[in-house]
């Protein structure tokens, strides 16, 4: 029997959800607002919320000083490349763990996740030396591989969780009908797990887009993505808050738009299998 929810409670829940949503979104809103202020207005105390002379000057300065499109393109290639490569590697791994588990599958999954617990700086020097030897410093290809490896445990975990929700009998039936392993994964499993794969792709694209340790330490000019673009406007000695906010808004705008348009898929994927 369905629960009855009173209008009053519904209104209260909606108001609460909006309040929490606004609270979470407020830092981003504040960054966007600050990007339209002058430097003096950006540091005014008490802070000015909306009552200021809006200016596009910061965006003009940032455009003039930095080649935004080059940073953006690098971000797209690095985040997109690492996500696609990660999914290609992770699907067979997650299939094996979900449908033909061994005694050690759970241990392997935990071990994979434990690699995320190591502070990145702990392996900076070995990776940097490796990049020098392989000629990969300041290359997009090198970063694609590194970010793919960093996010791989999350991708495998997510896909494993989604695959576990798919009845093994369907795959068995496909096998009985003569499907090869490749056909089973490509034509049976993958289409059934599309919502899960889509949310995995989106989440990992966002993670790779925002990654700021390796992208700052392994790039200089050619492969520098939007994280480096933002870092060039931060300073402990000098007030650049308005310009930094403009650069940050420009850096997060593409991913915000992507998130907005794909929120349905993202939510569908994240709740995949939650209700049986």
């Amino acid at each position, binding site marked *: 029997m369905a629960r009855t929810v009173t209008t009053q409670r519904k209104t209260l829940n909606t108001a609460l959800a909006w309040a929490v949503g606004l609270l979470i979104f407020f830092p981003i809103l504040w960054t966007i607002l600050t990007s339209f202020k002058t*430097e*003096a207005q950006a*540091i*005014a*105390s008490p802070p000015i919320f909306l009552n200021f002379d809006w200016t596009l000057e910061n965006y003009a300065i940032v455009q003039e*000083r930095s080649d935004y499109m080059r940073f953006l393109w690098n971000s797209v290639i690095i985040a997109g490349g690492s996500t696609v490569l990660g999914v290609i590697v992770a699907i067979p791994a997650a299939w094996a763990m979900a449908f033909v588990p061994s005694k050690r599958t759970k241990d392997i999954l935990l071990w994979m996740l434990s690699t995320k617990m190591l502070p990145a700086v702990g392996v*900076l*020097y070995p990776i*940097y*030396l490796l990049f*020098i030897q392989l000629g990969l*410093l*300041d290359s997009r290809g090198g970063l694609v591989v590194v970010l793919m490896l960093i996010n791989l445990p999350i991708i495998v975990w997510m896909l494993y969780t989604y695959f576990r929700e798919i009845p093994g009998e369907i795959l068995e039936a496909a096998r009985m009908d003569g499907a090869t392993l490749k056909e089973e994964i490509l034509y049976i499993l993958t289409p059934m797990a599309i919502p899960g794969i889509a949310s995995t792709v989106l989440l990992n694209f966002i993670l790779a887009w925002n990654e700021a340790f390796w992208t*700052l*330490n392994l790039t*200089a*000019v050619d492969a*520098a993505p939007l994280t*480096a673009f933002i*870092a*060039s*406007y*931060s*300073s*402990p*000695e*000098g*007030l*650049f808050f308005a310009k930094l906010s403009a650069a940050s808004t420009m850096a997060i705008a593409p991913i915000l738009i992507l998130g907005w348009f794909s929120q349905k898929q993202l939510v569908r994927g994240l709740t995949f299998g939650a209700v049986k």
Partner: protein
Amino acid sequence: MYLRNALRAATAMTLVATAAAHADTLTIATVNNGDMIRMQGYTDKFTEATGIDVEWVTLEENVLRQRVTTDITTKGGTFDIMTIGMYETPIWGANGWLVPLDGLSEEYDVGDILPAMAGGLSHDGTLFAAPFYGESSMIMYRADLMEKAGMEMPEAPSWQFIKEAAAAMTDRDAEINGICLRGKAGWGEGGAFITAMSNSFGARWFDEEWKPQFDQPEWADTLNFYVEMMNESGPAGYATNGFNENLSLFQQGKCGMWIDATVAASFVTNPDDSTVADHVGFALAPDTGLGKRSNWLWAWALAIPAGTQQEDAAKQFIEWATSKDYIELVAESEGWANVPPGARTSLYENPEYQKVPFAKMTLDSILSADPNSPTVKPVPYVGIQFAAIPEFAGIATQVSQEFSAVYAGQQTVEEALAKAQAFTAEEMEAAGY
């Protein structure tokens, strides 16, 4: 056969083109500050004159430090020129990681570099980095509030005077704090300030045997004085205030005095950003009568990492960027108040620059700082607000966190000093001192 020859020719052409492109482009790592950004705007002039292109990698100071340190210690070769400070230069020079800046042209006039700057950027008498701009620290104060408090700022005040003036200028109802000082954790933030201040109280980081000195009374005197004065006259939450937070407070008229980098003088006197631009006075950093003032010395300088393939082009750029001609170029376009300060003697002899209100006090502050003899007692290290040893940054970051915890009221001065002593002793022993 034809295909093979064509491939060989194409490969050769590609190699030549790559080599040519490589030889004509310098990659420079730098910090994001007003003077460095301004220089990037003039780079076209250098390219026009020499045919050498320049690619800039601009990063936040702490990110830059980590990035260039990783690259130079692994011989990564990513950068042809690095912007580094007085802390790194003598250490890296001693390790052979930097190209000595000898053989600079006569027109460059290396003897014109301020002796304090040249000394801090050298190792064993060899210059390893050319100062782009230099700074010390000094008092910036509100002349109108000082007058209202019935006091007059001496040119070289004592800490006792500063404490009394701060109390007299404080007006909590009007949101005016008598004094704003750095309290934020970090060796380059609050750590730099308290170290420079401690010099004037006769404290030191290490004795001649490299033994930490936090258990000596001079450190307790410094911290107790600082905490008492800031609790009485400082802004709320000063434990998390660094340069930018204090700059913001001062520009909005919420500080009676601010002791910080001389480079801030141009910010607080700029009427576009500062509401108190017309009321700012300057004085030397305070002392306690022991013979040392509490001002520091710093320079952002350009250095060439050993192993670069473009040593000559890099030297050419450094000569251009740190030359007298560059200073005149900026002065012509943007006025004398905007030229990079603190690097060359001739700048302070220029009658036009002498008209800039903070020029004299900046020079006096720089000249009164001696990195080879930073405090009252003898020390085994070089540096005023730091000790130029590789271990210092890590140790000082931890120590400054303990001090910030005192400022935030989370522990006592005695507890913080005991922890600082134990931690530093352990680290120094582990490092083999």
